[in-house]
């Protein structure tokens, strides 16, 4: 009796799961499908498969410029976030200082705060200091907002790191600096690489903060945004499909990494941690 009820419950759950997955993947499927459609976006069923949109895309100078800009921004923002996020995690793990709890919350805030607030408040700072808006201001914005990612990942890694590793190093005559580079960093290799990958991807995709800090040069999302405002261009489908493929590559890389380093934090735990406003 109860077993039939259970089976039907399971079936409902299964059906629900299928629907949710369909909902999540529908737009992505449509994008990819219509990037090969000669008539461009819309119109069912799609016919006349073509690679024209990809050809247009490859000849599109401004688009590629924006890709290069985005890559630069993401690389430098990643370096900044790591350079500050790793010490921040160390500080949270092992130093006591007044305002520590507040500092922890502040560092994590940009991850859950709507990007518009981070973007606008920084815009006011740059305005006040007469800083000309450029890729550099976007980098500062991304770097600041994404410290949270580096901090949560590295902090989680530190929680699992056996403290006696560093003690042994100090005991064997290595000073703090040597210990950091020879023991702490190698032991945190996976969280650090993971954070770097995540920061890079998030920065490549970021638009809400960049929206307010943009100067003359566009990042890729802002370039796409500009074109979307002017109307639907099927070229966007092509570039989106390419971004999707690159994202998939990043995911696979990430997954490989995770398999090697059992139980490392992933984008999921990252979001979970941020949502719970605390570190796992």
């Amino acid at each position: 009796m109860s077993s039939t009820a259970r089976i039907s419950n399971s079936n409902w759950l299964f059906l629900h799961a299928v629907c949710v997955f369909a909902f999540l993947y529908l737009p992505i499927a449509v994008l990819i499908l219509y990037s090969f459609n000669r008539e461009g976006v819309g119109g069912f069923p799609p016919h006349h498969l073509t690679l024209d949109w990809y050809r247009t895309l490859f000849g599109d100078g401004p688009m590629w410029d924006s890709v290069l800009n985005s890559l630069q921004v993401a690389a430098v923002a990643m370096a900044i976030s790591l350079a500050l996020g790793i010490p921040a995690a160390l500080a949270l793990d092992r130093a006591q200082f007044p305002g520590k709890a507040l500092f922890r919350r502040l560092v994590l805030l940009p991850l859950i705060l709507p990007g518009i607030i981070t973007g606008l408040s920084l815009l006011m700072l740059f305005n006040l200091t007469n800083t000309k808006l450029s890729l550099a201001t976007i980098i500062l914005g991304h770097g600041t907002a994404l410290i949270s990612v580096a901090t949560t990942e590295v902090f989680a890694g530190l929680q699992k790191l056996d403290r006696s590793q560093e003690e042994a190093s100090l005991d064997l005559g290595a000073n703090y600096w040597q210990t950091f580079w020879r023991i702490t960093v190698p032991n945190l290799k996976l969280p650090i690489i993971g954070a770097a990958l995540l920061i890079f991807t998030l920065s490549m995709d970021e638009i809400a903060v960049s929206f307010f800090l943009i100067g003359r040069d566009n990042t890729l999302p802002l370039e796409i945004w500009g074109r979307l405002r002017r109307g639907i261009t099927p070229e966007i489908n092509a570039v989106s499909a390419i971004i999707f493929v690159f994202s998939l590559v990043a995911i696979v890389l990430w997954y490989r990494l995770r398999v090697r380093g059992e139980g490392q934090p992933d984008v999921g735990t990252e979001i979970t941690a941020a949502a719970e406003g605390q570190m796992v």
Partner: protein
Amino acid sequence: MGHFVTAGGCSNSAKSMITSEIPMASAPELKSRTTLLSVRKVAKQFGKNVVLKEISLEVAEGEFLTILGESGSGKTTLLRIIAGFEKASAGEVWMGEDRLDLQPPYRRRVNTVFQNYALFPHLTVEQNVAYGLRVAKRPESEIASRIAEALEKVKMSAHAKSKPSKISGGQQQRVALARALVNRPRLLLLDEPLSALDANLRRQMQVELKALQREVGISFIFVTHDQEEAMVMSDRIALLRSGELEQVATPREIYGRPATAYAAQFIGHTNLLKGDVKSGVVCCGDLTWTSDRPDGPVLFSLRPENIRLLSQTASLPTLVRVQGKVVAQAFHGATELIRVQCAGGLVLVVRAPASTSPLDEVLLAFSPIDAIPVTKSAERI
């Protein structure tokens, strides 16, 4: 579990010595040696929790000193203060002419073998051993010969290229030793290094470790909660309890002449007898014997092996005798522990050669010199 070490120890030492204070005596052969490390009134508290209370302790050159205590006694904290991982709340640590406690851990000529070995998982055995020499920027040729020598000493040369995760616990133990000793420290600290090994390997490592210490001649401070291990290996034992030293003495001394009831109970089995001295006669329930102690209440420790089972006919006038009924017998191999309910509510535990037949009524006897007066300590927790 037999403590055969005791046999000689008690008979020649117990000339009714009165030891009301914690004796700081060291073994005779060490008296001439110079002091290497001196811990002076070191105290430590974490918040309100007092972990160490004014500990003073000296370690001689080439000495094997064991800090023995239950978990929570503060023994690891004391070790970590000497290594430099914790700051003492008060007191000083000196090594020769140098004030050690002001230096960071990496400037101290002290190395540690950690409880879980703390081998660096991303480095090979060889790289682990070379670590201290590399950070000290020794020339590579010297590093190569010294790690080869160190690995040879602990019989791990064959595993030089392995990662720590690929070798067994006992092997990791040896690598941790090599990694510490290769730096030629003046003092080696070992934090329960054998606790992760199984019983057989553990016994073997006890012997090897002791032999290694003799060979290299470096002072060892060895932390353990295992009293048997402490007795087998140490030149001296410092018995720590709730952040205070109960007794510091050679294993023989601490077993044969425990200073406190706690020391007597923690190291080996004992019977604690509450007695009263009145004009040279001790009264302990129905038992009496003569003593030159001053009048007043006194507590005696009487080891089970110092009580004999007498045949009814024997007559030995110097012995204290008591009749009793056997309530339990626990077989321990060569010996057995017999619990005897005596007249006057007294219960004595006796260690006797294992007998083939169950016992019932017995006559017990012991020599008054084996009843060691000890200071009272609070009950064991």
